[in-house]
């Protein structure tokens, strides 16, 4: 089998710069999990369908299983590890816990990041906005209602945090 040369790339993930030597065929998901042990990003279908591997690229949700790591150079990557500030959870993470929106937890990193991207763009989304935003993220446990409730509550939490600091 033909084996191409490794290439030196630099990635900015959760505000931190990483320099890596990788083959260009590696997906962002593989590099995050295997090279950087950022295993909060989950591998599900590995086919671009389920949304468990969602990360934010320049603030927009994408499937990291369908994105080559080499192409993420020069862009800001945010994974679930980049959301909490120390011990203080992001308002959406907190809302997921408070509203029982996590059961097995496998879809949660993707769901939470997708919700964060929505909230950053639209601080007061309607239920329909929320449902559209998470349309590409599959959950096989909660039935989605609690997730939608948690995202709504997370938006309110975030507003309170912004108002009161």
């Amino acid at each position: 089998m033909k084996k191409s040369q490794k290439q030196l790339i630099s990635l900015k993930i959760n505000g931190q710069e990483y320099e890596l030597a990788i083959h260009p065929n590696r997906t962002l998901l593989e590099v995050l999990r295997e090279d950087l042990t950022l295993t909060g990003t989950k591998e599900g279908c590995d086919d671009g369908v389920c949304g468990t591997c969602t990360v934010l690229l320049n603030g927009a949700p994408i499937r990291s299983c369908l994105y080559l790591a080499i192409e993420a150079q020069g862009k800001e990557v945010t994974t679930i590890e980049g959301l909490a500030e120390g011990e203080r959870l992001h308002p959406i993470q907190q809302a997921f816990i408070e509203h029982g929106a996590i059961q097995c937890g496998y879809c949660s990193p993707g769901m939470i990041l997708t919700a964060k991207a929505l909230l950053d763009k639209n601080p007061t989304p309607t239920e329909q906005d929320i449902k559209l935003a998470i349309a590409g993220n599959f959950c096989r446990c909660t039935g989605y209602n609690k997730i939608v409730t948690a995202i709504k509550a997370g938006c309110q939490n975030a507003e309170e945090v912004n108002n009161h600091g």
Partner: protein
Amino acid sequence: MRIPYFDFRAPSTLEEALSIMDDYKGGARVLAGGTDLIPIMKYGLDAPDTIMSLKKITDLRGIKLENKELNIGAMTPLADLLSSHIIKENFRALHQAVEAVAAPPIWNVATIGGNICQNSRCFYYNQSKTWRIERPPCLKAGGNACYAVPKGKKCFSVYSGDLAPALIALKSSVFVERKGRSRILSLQNIFSGNGTAPFTLEKEELLTSIIVPLPDKGTGSSYVKMRFRPSVDYPLLSVAASVSLDGSKKIKETTLVLGAVGPAPVVVAAAGKLLRGGTKDTVDFDALGEILRKGTQMVDNLALPGSYRRKMIPVIAKKAIRAAIE
């Protein structure tokens, strides 16, 4: 699933990209958004030696309406098409077609050019290597067998793009470039109708932009897609319609395009003649249904049987025509 090794090229100008296409004589596979190509490579259906990414070529992105023509760069992400008010207000079928493509995380990456140039699909082809290895390769995989139509001598794989039927209904053309030469051809003409090689473009050619004429006042369009799960599935059938009405609300011109029926979108020329002179309430949908059903061949190579999908053509077409008139 690992992607096979490849050499990676990422030109930052169109000239450079066209030179690479010329040098490699088609050996460099074009990577736009990657949402079609990357799963294909993971499944071992394609293992190009070289991948050429177009993401750095910023000139290939953008939406402009000039001289009654909408010009869309091939690398414009679907998310940009969706947020364009120009498209939403004037090119409704295109807006609805983009909305019908998968889910928001795909819209952020997938491009209009990549969506148009996606490979055709078949239940017996788009499977993992482990699944496919159990039988000899099919026609699309370079073998001699067809599992959708036993003893079939041609490939019936289905073109499953959402945007192309809508763009054809809107009378779109594409700008295609190669080193030292360029040409404009109607979008419909880039499709070969051959499932093993669905496109007519030459190996060195690159689709660089899409040109959509501004519809006249009194023209409406729509795109209706049949699928199981709106957030992920390719169409099992789709219909794009563009209908022009005259001053007395009578139908002047209709373009009806069927998607996911075979290796290329199908323009139903007879629909225009049948509908001309009618109104929203007098259209003979039964007669149209007969034409559509009889004129279309569909086989059992998607998640629903061809016979069922064929029966649904009149239903979806009726919805599309009604929506275009409203």
